[in-house]
C-alpha cells in the first residue's frame, strides 16, 4: 500500500559494508514507509542477503560507510537484540537449528523481550501458550513443533513457517524476509505467503528479498528494486519484477557495463562489475 504521507520507518543512505575486508555493499539507498511492501531482487552475489544481515546487525559484516535510520534513530549503533526489540525482524534464508533449546521456550523468551521493550507486561507460560496457539493459525503449523528443539529436524517448509510464526509473535514494524521462498514447494509457499499477507498492515512494512517472481505472484509488492554489484541498480513498481521474469538478468550486465563506461567519461567512480 503506497501512502506518500506515511511515516518513514527505514531510511538507508549510501550504505557500504564489507565482510573480511571484501566490500559487498557499495552504496545502497532505500526508503521504506509504513504500509509498503518492497521486493529486492537480484542474482546470487549481488548483495541482497548481505543487506538483510547488515540491517539485522550480523557481527561478521562491517559497515564501512553510509547510514541507516529506523524511525529517525540511528540503527547501526544498536546491538542485534536491541534492533529486534524495537521492531526490526529478519526472517532467515537458512533458519538455524538449535538442539536442546525448546522451540516454545525460545518463542516465549523472544516475545517477552519484544513486549517489555514496548512497555507491555511479560507473558507467563500459560498466557503465552494461549497466544502462540492462536498465532499458529497464521501459518497453519502443527503445535507438535512447539515441543521440539528450535528448527531441529524441521523440513525446509517447517523452518520457514517457524520463521513466520516468530514474525507473528514479535509483530515487527519492519520485517525483512531473506529468500523466504527458497526451498518451498508450492503449497508451503502459499501458506508462508498467506502468513506474510495476513501480518502486513498500514502500520508496518515488509522487505522481501527474493530471486523469483513466484513469491511476488502471492505477495504483491508496491516497489521492486534490482540489486547488482552491491547497489540498487533500478527501482520500479511490480512491473519491474514481471519484466525480470520475462527478460532475465542479462540486461543487468549491460546496464552495469554502460554505467562503468559513463563513469569513465564523467570521471565519477564507476560501478564495479562482477
Amino acid at each position, binding site marked *: 500500500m503506497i501512502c506518500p504521507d506515511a511515516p518513514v520507518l527505514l531510511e538507508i543512505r549510501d550504505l557500504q559494508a564489507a565482510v573480511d575486508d571484501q566490500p559487498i555493499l557499495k552504496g545502497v539507498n532505500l526508503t521504506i514507509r509504513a504500509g509498503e511492501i518492497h521486493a529486492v531482487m537480484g542474482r546470487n552475489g549481488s548483495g541482497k542477503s548481505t543487506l538483510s544481515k547488515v540491517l*539485522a*546487525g*550480523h*557481527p*561478521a559484516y562491517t559497515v564501512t560507510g553510509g547510514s541507516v535510520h529506523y524511525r529517525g534513530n540511528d540503527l547501526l549503533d544498536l*546491538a*542485534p*537484540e536491541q*534492533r*529486534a*526489540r524495537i521492531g526490526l525482524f*529478519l526472517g*532467515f534464508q537458512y*533458519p*538455524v537449528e*538449535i*538442539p*536442546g*533449546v525448546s522451540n516454545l521456550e*525460545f518463542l516465549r*523468551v*523472544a516475545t517477552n*523481550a*519484544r513486549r517489555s*521493550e514496548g512497555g507491555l507486561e511479560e507473558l507467563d507460560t500459560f498466557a503465552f501458550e494461549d497466544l502462540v496457539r492462536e498465532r499458529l493459525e497464521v501459518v497453519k503449523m502443527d503445535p507438535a513443533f512447539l515441543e521440539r*528443539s528450535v528448527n531441529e529436524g524441521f523440513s525446509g517448509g517447517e523452518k520457514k513457517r517457524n520463521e513466520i510464526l*516468530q514474525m507473528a509473535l*514479535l509483530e515487527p514494524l519492519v520485517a525483512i524476509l531473506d529468500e523466504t521462498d527458497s526451498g518451498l514447494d508450492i503449497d508451503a509457499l502459499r501458506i508462508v505467503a498467506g502468513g506474510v499477507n495476513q501480518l502486513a498492515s498500514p502500520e508496518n512494512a515488509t522487505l522481501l528479498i527474493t530471486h523469483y517472481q513466484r513469491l511476488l505472484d502471492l505477495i504483491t509488492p508496491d516497489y521492486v528494486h534490482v540489486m547488482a554489484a552491491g547497489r540498487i541498480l533500478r527501482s520500479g513498481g511490480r512491473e519491474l519484477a514481471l519484466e525480470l521474469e520475462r527478460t532475465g538478468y542479462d540486461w543487468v550486465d549491460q546496464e552495469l557495463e554502460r554505467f562503468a563506461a559513463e563513469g569513465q567519461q564523467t570521471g565519477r567512480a564507476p560501478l564495479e562489475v562482477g
Partner: protein
Amino acid sequence: MVAVVPATPYAGAAGGASASATAAWLASLAGAPLPNRRQEDWRFTDPAALTGIDPQLIGLADPLAAQELPDGLECLSPAAASPWLGQALAATTSLEHWPVLLNAGASAGAAAAQPTSLLALRVSGAAGRLQLPLDAGDQPGLARFRLLLVVEAGAQLELLLQPSSGGVNAISLVSEVILEPGAELTLGSLAIGAAGSCLLQHTAVVQAPGSRFEHITVSAGWALARQEPRILQRQGGACTRLRALQVCCDRQLADTHSWVCFDGPDGELDQLHKAVADDQGRSVFNGAVRVPRAAQGTRAAQLSRSLLLSDRARIDTKPELEILADDVKCAHGATVSRLQAEELFYLQSRGIAADQAAQLLQRAFCAEVLRDLPAGAAALRPLHQLLGEG
C-alpha cells in the same frame, strides 16, 4: 625433609592445617602418597585441592536412616554384605586406584565416626526409585561413603546419588555394583560442590549377560572432581549406557577416567561425555574401552563433546580404544568447540540479549545429559541452578 606441595588457593584454606600435614594424613590413610602428574592416570590432574581440607574424618548420619526403602530393596548387614564386598573392585582391577585405597583406609576411622560406614543394598523385583543424599555440608575434613548394590536377576532399580558439599571438605565415595543376568539399574549421580570442595567418586560395576546399566553422572562446583566409572561386562552380552556432564569454571578441575571392558561377545556400549569449561576451569576426559579377542560382535560408541567458553580454560580429552576382536563395531569421536556464532546471532536477532543467548545455548548443551537423570532429580534445586533457572 620438608614436603613440597604446590601453592594453591585452597592450601590451608580450612582450619589452618598446613597443606603438607593434610597430604601426609591422606597418604597415611591410603597407604600411598598422593597421586602426582608423573602418573599416567593423573597426568592432567593435580590433586592439590585435596590438601586444602582439614586432616580429620567427618562424622555423618546414616543416609539410609531417614529413608523408607521401597519394596524390593533390602539393607544388608555388614556380615551379609561381606561376601560381595571387593568383588567388583577386584574384577575391574580397581583395588590399587588411589581413591579406592583412600576410601578403604578411611574406613577404620569412619566406622567410629559414622554409625553405618557401609550402605549395602540388595535389589529384587522391580524396586522403583530411591534417592540417596550424601551431603558433607560445611563440616571440615573428609567424608567417606561406601556403597554396595547387588541387583538380582531380573530386578530393576533407579537410584539417584546426591554427593554434595557446602564447604572446604572432601567426599570419598566408592560404589560397587553387581548386576545379575537381566538386572536393570539406572544409577544417577548429581554431584554439586562448593568452593574448595573435592569429590573422589569411584564406581566399579560388574554386569552379567542380559543386564542393563545406565549411569548418568553430573558434577559441578567442585574445586576437584574425579570420576572413575569402571565397568566390566563379565561375559559380554550386556548393555552399558554412560552419560556424563562435568562443568568447571573459576579454577575448578573436573576429571573423568572411564573404563569399560567386554569379557565376552555381543556387548553394547553407548557413551556420551560432555564438559563445559569456563574461566580458568580445566576438564579432563580419558575414556578407555577394552575389546579383547573374546568380545566378538561388540558394538561400542563413545563420544566426547566439550564446550570451551574462555581462552584460559583448558580441555584434555582422549579416547583410548583397545580392540583385539575383529568382528566389532566401535566408533569414537571428540569435539571441542565454542558457542556457535550463528546460533548466538539467531537468538540475538530475536531480541534475546547476548549473555542470555549464551546461557540458553549452554543450558541446551547440558540438557542432553541432565534430562537423562532419574526423574527425581527434576525436583532438585541443584539441577535448576545448573540450568541457570535461579
